[in-house]
């Protein structure tokens, strides 16, 4: 499912995606896996909504109504914060180069999630230790990624057990 376009690159593995549909964006769970075009894979690790700066400035100087609901104004933007994880059909979980701006971003289908997390026919979540060791995201977000994984692997008991162990372990780190 198409969800938007690369809007900003903060770092080789930290990207911002502008949601195509700000209403639908609310329904995309944190932890969901995405792909950029047909190569880079990432996970949604945050959700941002804002109002364009100049618009907001008007509101503030107007002083009268500080508690205006952004939604009501119909001028807000929705963004996804994405953590780059790897590339499809690559040996290891590494980002060689960040994606280009304006590239299209899609939610990854369950089947592709499973494919991406397979190494030598076995479930693999090797990039986990990188995320933890370099403290790339908060443990609670990792748990959300694991929730999505669990969903994708709902038919494999063995993998589910492993994911469960990993979730417990992650919670303990906190």
């Amino acid at each position, binding site marked *: 499912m198409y969800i938007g376009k690369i809007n900003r690159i903060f770092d080789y593995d930290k990207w911002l995606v502008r949601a195509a549909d700000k209403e639908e964006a609310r329904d995309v769970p944190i932890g969901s896996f995405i792909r950029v075009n047909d190569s880079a894979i990432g996970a949604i690790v945050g959700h941002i909504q804002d109002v364009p700066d100049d618009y907001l400035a008007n509101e503030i100087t107007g002083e009268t109504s500080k508690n205006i609901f952004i939604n009501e104004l119909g001028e807000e933007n929705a963004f996804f914060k994405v953590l780059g994880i790897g590339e499809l059909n690559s040996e290891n979980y590494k980002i060689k180069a960040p994606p280009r701006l304006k590239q299209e971003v899609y939610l990854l289908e369950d089947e592709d999630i499973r494919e991406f997390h397979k190494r030598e026919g*076995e479930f693999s979540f090797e990039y986990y230790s*990188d995320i933890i060791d370099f403290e790339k995201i908060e443990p609670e977000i990792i748990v959300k990624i694991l929730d999505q994984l669990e969903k994708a692997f709902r038919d494999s008991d063995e993998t589910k057990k492993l994911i469960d*162990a990993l979730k417990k*372990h992650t919670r303990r780190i906190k």
Partner: protein
Amino acid sequence: MKNIGVVESSEKNIVCFITEERIARGSFVFYNDSELNRKILCRIKESETIEKIPTEFLTASFESREAAKRVGFDLEDIGKFRVHAKIVGYFDEELNEFINPKVSPISGTPVFEADSSILSQINKKKDGYDNSATIGKIINSDTKVVLDVSDIVSTHLSVLASTGSGKSYTIGVLLEEMLKAKNGASAVVLDPHGEYRTLADIMDKQKLNETGVLEDFTYSDGTLPRVEVFDDEDIKVKVNDLTFNELVSIIDDGNMSSKMRYYLRKTYNNVRGKEFTKEELLDEVMGLENEEGEKLIKSPQHSSSIEGIKWRYSKNILNKKFFQNYTKLNLDELYQPRKISVLDLSDIGELDQQLIASVLLRKTFKARKKTVKNQVKSNEQGLPYPVFTVIEEGHRFTPASGEAKSKNILKKVLSEGRKFGVGVCLVSQRPSKLDSDALSQCMTQITMRLINPVDQNHVKESLESFSKELVDMLPGLSTGEALISGSAINTAVSANIREKITRHGGAGIDDPSSLWKADLEDEEPDIEKTEVEEDNQTDLFS
């Protein structure tokens, strides 16, 4: 020289290094001190893993290592250990001891497995030389552990361990070594359980030959060692050998009056220093009646005192076979070079065992003292060579609390014996019940598995050389493994005691059920047995 790790840090006397090897506690490693240009020996204290697989993955529902790897845990460090080792030092050939380097190694210093060239520095003596006893090997190595027999004989030995850990076995090995041609020792074993008789195997030329050790035991004149076993028929106390206090302790049933003591003292003084029989001593008592005739008639109290002595003496000494006018246990019989005398005390009561020990040690000490000081008179017995006495169940002979007839003389021998070559080996499975002064006089220690914390503490407190590090090793030792420390060796070392040449007499009961059911055998044939027999038969006829 095998490099096995690298120093991480060091503090005080402890070096901490990282290795992928599983190194046993008590084994040795070394590093090079480049400034001193010396190899510094270190004894392994403890070792711990650096990393662990997360607890959540330690479950039987999947293969933990594999699973942890799949979710990206770095398993490289999981196979690594952080090892703490105590610095022993470098060996100074001139001083003949290990010297602590006083400076610590820096991080990154390579650590090596100690090879035999450095391990053999632990021994004061060389294998096979005079006054050496090779009783086993340093654990996890092929290097022999060689004790210095001169130290053992002059400054005593303790052998302590929980029951069944191998004390008697180890002493058997030591005695074998002491009998070898290189030593030719003279020793006596006080054997309350009758488990040392099997040492007599050493006189079996054929057996020695079969085991390939005949040469080791053949003296320059072609003879073999001798082992003589004395049992209760032979073990008697000669009344003449008793001191006054011993005499009192034997006949006093707890209500001997001071008058009786007075008269007994008088009697004893009359015969003191002379040869007398037990009957003659009684005659002396009766003689008092004449001597003190008038006084006795006036005072019935006195006369009943003498009656009291007569009665007690007859009951406790005169009519007891244990007390005789002769004894086979003469020093020149017991202590001969190239001979071990085993006193099988298993049929003798505990108090009488103490008495035997007391008399024996006193006579030995006196004879050695006079010999060394050149004071042996023409009618006296000297003992012209050092002797070694093994005392099993040492806590019975010198208990921590309470009295034992042998306690005083044993403590005297332990504290002064070194000057005169009267060596003692104290053995006990309950070190905490052993008098701590006595224990502290044993300058060499063979300590085997010791589980009871009270005993461990007692050992630590009685022996200054026994650090916590060593005590911590005791519960982890297996049967036949010993921690050897003290003066007969250059530094404390864990060893596997070698196999005995002679049979071991102290084994427990292996197969009680076969003994309980022995009489059933005819009536109810054992199924397994019949099968074996049938097999044999088919074998025979095929």
